[in-house]
């Protein structure tokens, strides 16, 4: 039974919620990151997200400890995405790691294609494409005024001068505009093969089919161009 008076997701079958809870508890990291809760609140005091959202790392740990399946499901769908992943909560005197528990909960949410995860990551998909296809998360050409209006006019100045300012960098690897640094094609392909071999692309398909299709098409064409046999790079990680 949820701790919330106005509990949500009560229409979702209990078995479905229990299945996700079991996946979190079955994660290989569980025994190292969950040691219960003294209810001291140190994690909340240190938590940046707790100051600006209706968010509490302590509630997460307590909910997991009590095996409160309804509250767990609500947290997994809503405030799980508010965590800053700074790990300030590792001050926990009981050596629980709320930030890491939230990482695992997010992974389970993505693996199961929860609509809330899709919604939370909607604006973020282009970043997933960037990192998975190029090996660098952000690129100089992302600095566009319409993407960062709150950073002021200097973003436009950078954007206007981008090509020449990048060439005015002494390290040879930084003369790039579309990548943070010059990653060799061979290295990009090795990274993509890691995603294939570890079942990572299936996670992307669960969360954003459009990005998954573009990613597969672009990268597999590149792999074939470079003489790789795609059949050699199927998922080698067993469930």
């Amino acid at each position, binding site marked *: 039974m949820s701790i919330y008076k106005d509990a949500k997701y009560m229409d979702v079958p209990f078995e479905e919620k229990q299945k996700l809870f079991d996946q979190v508890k079955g994660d*290989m*990291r569980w025994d*190292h990151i969950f040691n219960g809760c003294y209810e001291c609140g140190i994690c909340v005091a*240190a938590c*940046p*997200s707790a*100051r*600006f*959202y209706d968010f509490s790392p302590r509630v997460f740990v307590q909910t997991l400890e009590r095996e409160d399946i309804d509250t767990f499901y609500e947290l997994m769908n809503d405030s799980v995405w508010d965590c800053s*992943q*700074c*790990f*300030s909560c*590792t*001050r926990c005197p009981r050596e629980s790691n709320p930030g890491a528990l939230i*990482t695992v909960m997010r*992974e389970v949410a*993505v693996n199961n294609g929860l609509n809330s995860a899709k919604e939370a*990551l909607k604006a*973020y998909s282009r*970043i*997933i494409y960037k*990192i998975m296809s190029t*090996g*660098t*998360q*952000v690129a*100089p050409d*992302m600095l566009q005024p319409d993407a*960062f209006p*709150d*950073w*002021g006019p*200097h973003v436009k*100045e*950078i954007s206007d001068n981008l090509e*020449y*300012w990048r*060439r*005015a*960098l*002494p*390290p*040879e690897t*930084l003369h790039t505009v579309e990548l*943070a640094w010059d*990653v*060799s094609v061979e*290295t990009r392909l*090795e*990274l993509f093969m*890691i995603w294939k*071999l*570890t*079942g*990572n692309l299936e*996670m992307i398909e669960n*969360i954003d089919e459009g990005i998954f299709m573009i990613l597969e098409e672009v990268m597999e064409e590149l792999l074939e161009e470079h003489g790789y046999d795609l059949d050699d790079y199927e998922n*080698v*990680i067993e469930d």
Partner: protein
Amino acid sequence: MPTTTASSLPLKAEDRKFERNSPPPTEDYREQLFELEAKGEIEIIRVPEPYIEVETKYGRKKKIPLEHTWHHKSCGQCGHIPGYSTAIFWLNRQFGFDYHDPRDQTSCTAWNYYASATSNPAAQAAVAVRNFAQAQIDGYFPVIHCGTSYGHYKEVRAELIYSAELRKQVRAVLARLGKKLVFPEEIVHYSEWVHVMRHEIKKRQTRDFSNLTITVHPACHYHKLVVEDAIYDKDLYNGQRTAIVSGLVKTIGSKLADYSTWHDCCGFGFRHILVSRDFSRSFATMRKIEVMIEEANPDLTLTHDTGCVTTLDQSQFAAKAHGKKVGIPVMSDAQYAALAMGAHPFKVCQLHWHNMEIRTILEKMGIDYDKAWSEFEHQVDRIKSGEIDYLSWEDADA
């Protein structure tokens, strides 16, 4: 009613004596790694000589290599604040150290992982080990530029040590790439290199920074995410917080100013800085910048991670528009050290990529802002005219 006497009051931080009275609470990860190596499970890349040993949180010694380093670059630094990486390389060049700036390196992908969770432990460990294996093939020892890569790789290390199943999976993945399961003896952050080099940096200091008041933001993924690798020094804050960056500021001779929210994060948030910046802005300005100004009124704030420089610097523009009392320039310890050693503020430290006004701090450092900017613009004009293709290291120092 009990009375409180002066002698019963808790001691202030600076009056407390820091003494270790118990052994480290954790197993030594190096012993665990070497045990796995002895069983043939993993190959360990040794820290090359010369190295300097420093004390970490639990009193163990950590080796920091001086050269023969493979620079594991940072997406955010190289992409949006490239003077950060440039300053690290410039420092290595000034000391004549052998280093390698690889093209066969990928990001750790942990920014994405902490933002979206669209990955899993096997993939994350395989990405880490692929980079380490490549460093070994290239003949260098990895030094990590990004605080999040540093933190995440420590997590990966713990997972590999404890899970035979994960080791088996990673070995299988790496075998398909023609690579082995290798891991470095130490995960070394570039700021640890700056820290152990601080006395050499001091010897080559050409600009006097004794008139500067500086606040330091220690990066969360450096000292909170797997805590024990971080460097501590009993002579700095009584060993009660990491010595990184603060040690450099004191050695260079600036005034190190404390503030009450030093332990708070910067507000980066991984997902938030890209798609939910109202949170990042609010936290960075209200919990960090405004508190620093109120309590220390610094000329400059220094930090040692990608996201922290970005968030603390970029968040101030909108806060200023709202009439908030903000306006502290932000840079990395590497840029500060390079400036102290005479580096050019634009050709080397590339401070025009930063947001906050820097004319005042540069003039306080004894640098003629207008002259320096026109020198940079001259080089850009040479590129535009086709006289040169790129700015060379020689031109950067000319």
